[in-house]
């Protein structure tokens, strides 16, 4: 019957009907927004990746020195062969890869031990001072990931590579051994102490979601406490543990700051620091081979994560409304354990800051006695006897410029990211179950599997020439914004989706039936109801961008220097006191931003982290 109607219409009307249907489809806001987002993401993610792969399989001007008779732009497997099979490859790829894996495994293991046991203590025992522990656990996350590494240097530097003698050496008189001062051991410790927050949040959320009746059922069946823990509780949190493990592992794989501060001076290279060093000498093709290797590793780990967690995820929904009625009693130990935990956390949170601050207050570097304290590095005028004539931090226009750049970058990134998040969330949720929707969701996920340093590397060649209406961006501030926004797309789309899911489609449909057009529905219904998600997304992005290093280290130029990259430059040039002062300034700005935004919006960092 229905087809009979179609056949009765003349061809012209059928074409007209098709055109009408197409425009009707196109005019629905979720479709047009998804298409725009696809185009934007294609341009920001796919094109750069494609360019990167192409760079590794063509000769560049730089390579002609090694390859006789080659023409720049020709196809070649030269980079891959060189980086994977030769002796140079051993040094530049395999060894750094081993180092990266060592550090990632070690740091993840450490973070797991600390974060997991803290989570268990907080959620499943009657430990006093739980709120304090909760708050303190988030603090390392606010600080840049290499803060502890820098502080480590202040404490343990032994003069092997120059720089300030460490505090330990000053007080004891003997230099600490090299293994303690540099290389894998300190990198593992400093990264592990930074990333334990992830584990803590992951595992405590998982533990909280277990319905205590599951454990009570075990108890009624006559199982002992240990048996319940081993046979019921632990299997239920395994997915969360694995997920936290793999996420942390992937993060440490791509981290740059710590290995640069504690590894590079003794030529202990990881993949990320090796990428930078290749870029610095112009071996872009080689660097990209490393970047692709890193991306592949990251993709594999994340894939494993999804495989494992995907099949076991059904566990997670079992709990949901569990309220812990049964907590393990720590008896007389509870106050001692609580005090120990809080002391540890306070040390992790404030120790590095105190060390860094102290180092910035020393008139003569390496002299830790109280008589040597001065504010010269902060407010001193330029004096040739101090710091090769560099003025104090608070009098240095370069610092102000970098601080201003940092703030500008973070605010702009946070704004665009939150904005994209709302749009992506809206179109993905409204297009659930359609092909367009799943393409959008999948494409938005890609930056997640690309480690920061590799993502930055992707953008080096991209935008060096004008593309379509977009002017060349290399070396501009805009490029930093673009790369930061692009890297945050997975997080923003995820938080956008969860914010949008909470709104419920009926609220918008009721408005549509009442005659509101899409813009009015967005303005009057969707935006007001997702504002809290928008603000906590904004806050989280602001903080992560403020302390972002590996993503932008390859892209900053002297005029676009931000605080995080400035600490690295000072540190590399041996101006450690400036470097340390800049970190403190950076942390102060993050805390101020957190406070201001939290004040006005009621959104909080913890909320954002949880989401």
């Amino acid at each position, binding site marked *: 019957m229905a087809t009979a109607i179609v056949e009765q219409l003349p061809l012209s009307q059928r074409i007209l009907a098709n055109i009408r249907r197409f425009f009707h489809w196109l005019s629905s806001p979720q479709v047009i927004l998804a298409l725009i987002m696809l185009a934007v993401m294609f341009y920001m993610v796919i094109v750069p990746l494609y360019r990167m792969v192409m760079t590794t399989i063509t000769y560049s001007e730089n390579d002609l020195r090694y390859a006789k008779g080659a023409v720049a732009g020709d196809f070649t497997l030269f980079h891959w062969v060189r980086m994977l099979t030769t002796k140079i490859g051993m040094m530049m790829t395999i060894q750094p890869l081993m180092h990266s894996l060592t550090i990632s495994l070690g740091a993840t293991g450490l973070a797991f031990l600390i974060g997991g046991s803290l989570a268990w203590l907080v959620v499943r025992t009657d430990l006093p001072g739980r709120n304090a522990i909760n708050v303190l656990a988030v603090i390392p996350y606010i600080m840049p990931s290499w803060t502890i590494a820098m502080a480590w240097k202040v404490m343990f530097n032994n003069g092997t590579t120059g720089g300030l003698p460490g505090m330990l050496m000053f007080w004891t008189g003997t230099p600490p051994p090299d293994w303690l001062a540099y290389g894998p051991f300190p990198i593992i410790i400093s990264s592990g102490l930074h990333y334990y927050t992830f584990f803590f949040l992951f595992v405590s959320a998982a533990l909280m979601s277990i319905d205590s009746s599951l454990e009570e059922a075990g108890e009624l069946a006559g199982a002992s406490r240990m048996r319940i823990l081993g046979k019921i509780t632990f299997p239920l949190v395994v997915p969360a543990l694995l997920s936290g493990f793999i996420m942390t592992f992937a993060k440490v794989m791509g981290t740059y700051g710590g290995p640069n501060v504690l590894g590079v001076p003794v030529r202990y290279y990881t993949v990320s620091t090796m990428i930078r060093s290749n870029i610095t000498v112009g071996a872009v093709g080689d660097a990209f081979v490393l970047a692709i290797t890193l991306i592949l590793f990251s993709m594999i780990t994340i894939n494993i994560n999804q495989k494992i967690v995907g099949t076991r995820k059904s566990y997670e929904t079992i709990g949901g409304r569990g309220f812990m009625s049964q907590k393990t009693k720590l008896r007389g130990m509870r106050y001692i354990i609580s005090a120990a935990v809080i002391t540890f956390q306070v040390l992790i949170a404030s120790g590095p800051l105190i060390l860094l601050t102290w180092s910035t207050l020393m008139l003569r570097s390496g002299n830790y006695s109280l008589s040597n304290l001065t504010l010269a590095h902060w407010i001193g005028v330029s004096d040739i006897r101090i710091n090769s004539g560099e003025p104090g931090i608070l009098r240095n226009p370069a610092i102000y410029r970098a601080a201003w750049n940092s703030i500008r970058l973070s605010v702009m990134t946070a704004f665009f990211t939150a904005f994209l998040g709302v749009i992506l969330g809206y179109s993905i949720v409204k297009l659930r179950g359609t092909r367009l929707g799943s393409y959008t969701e999948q494409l938005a996920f890609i930056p997640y599997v690309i480690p920061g340093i590799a993502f930055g590397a992707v953008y080096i060649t991209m935008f060096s020439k004008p593309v379509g209406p977009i002017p060349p961006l290399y070396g501009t501030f805009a490029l930093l914004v673009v790369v930061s926004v692009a890297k945050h797309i997975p997080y923003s789309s995820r938080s956008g989706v969860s914010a949008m899911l909470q709104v419920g489609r*009926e*609220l918008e449909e009721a408005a549509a039936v009442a005659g509101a057009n899409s813009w009015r529905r967005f303005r*009057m219904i969707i935006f007001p109801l997702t504002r809290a998600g928008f603000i906590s997304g904004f806050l989280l992005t602001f903080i992560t961008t403020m302390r972002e290093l590996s993503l932008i280290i390859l892209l900053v130029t002297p005029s676009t220097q931000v605080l995080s990259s400035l600490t690295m430059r000072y540190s590399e040039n041996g101006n450690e006191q400036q470097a340390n002062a800049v970190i403190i300034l950076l942390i102060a700005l993050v805390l101020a931003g957190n406070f201001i935004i939290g004040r006005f919006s009621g959104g909080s960092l913890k909320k954002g982290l949880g989401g």
Partner: protein
Amino acid sequence: MATTITIKNLTKKFGNVVAVNNLSLTIEPGTFLTLLGPSGCGKTTLLRCIAGLEDPNEGEIYIGDRLVFSHAKGISLPAGQRELGMAFQNYALWPHMTVYKNLTFALEIQKLSKAQMDERVKEALAEVQMDGYQDRYPREMSGGQQQRIALARMLAYRPKVFLMDEPLSNLDARLRMDMRGELKRLHHVSGATTVYVTHDQLEALTMSSTIAVMKLGVVQQLDTPDRVYHFPANLFVADFIGNPKVNLLEGVVKGNNQVSLGKFDIPMNTNAATGDVVVAVRPEDIDISTQPKDGAVQFIAYSVLPAGADSTIIARLDELEMTIKVNGISKIKMDEKIWLTFDPDALNLYDKKSGDLIASHV
């Protein structure tokens, strides 16, 4: 003022799943039509297609004389231009707006003056007996109050058609009963064509002027509540409607107006049926006695469930189970012998293969 809704050959697919299957339906002006069926039967999808919240894959929809959707002509009017009001299962009140703002949302789009809006809000709130609530936020009201406000919001902009998607299913049993009465009254007063979706057969029977029973995207029967209950068009409808459920008994038609159910025969008063049939008899149409009776069949009372105004008795004869409903509290004891009599004027006979009604009592 009442409007006809005409649906022609409507098909809606979600991927490979056909939610509405080549469905044609005319809803007469002023009708209270209920789309009734189990979940997944396409009733909500059909409603959403009428509302303009889904685009069907085939077919046409007219509201009044206006063509609001035609696949062949490529026409699909946005929901807001179809002049209809909708009540949702979870009320869908905008939580960040007061009752007043919720009610005037559509009126602002229609560019009514402040005085007109005040007037409309007052009227609509009076109609749902919620006067004086205009400054409340949705979360400050109970579920029942929120649903009244949702109805008031729909009334305030005076749509030509009311669409309701299980509006009472989130309310508790008692409130649901009250609201049924009010909704029916509301329809009676306004006279607007109403399409109401529910899976609750009692709701459908009590409120509708017409019921469309749906299964797998197809209307099984379009009829008055009375006829849907007493003359179900097929076994699906017979089984779906009625609480406790209808008794369905497989049998073979013999001569002289008898159906053999294996262990015993029961009389019928039609000659239309032959061969394998399914006999449908409502629980209240079976007479029950504690004494042997002429023509009665002996059963055992397997379980007795008194419920105040009536009682349900589950009777068994070996494998054969029968549900009987009697008035008042039953005195029958469990495991007691009982005798059942079947009224030949209360039987419906269905073809065993097709499941269609072949013969019914008059």
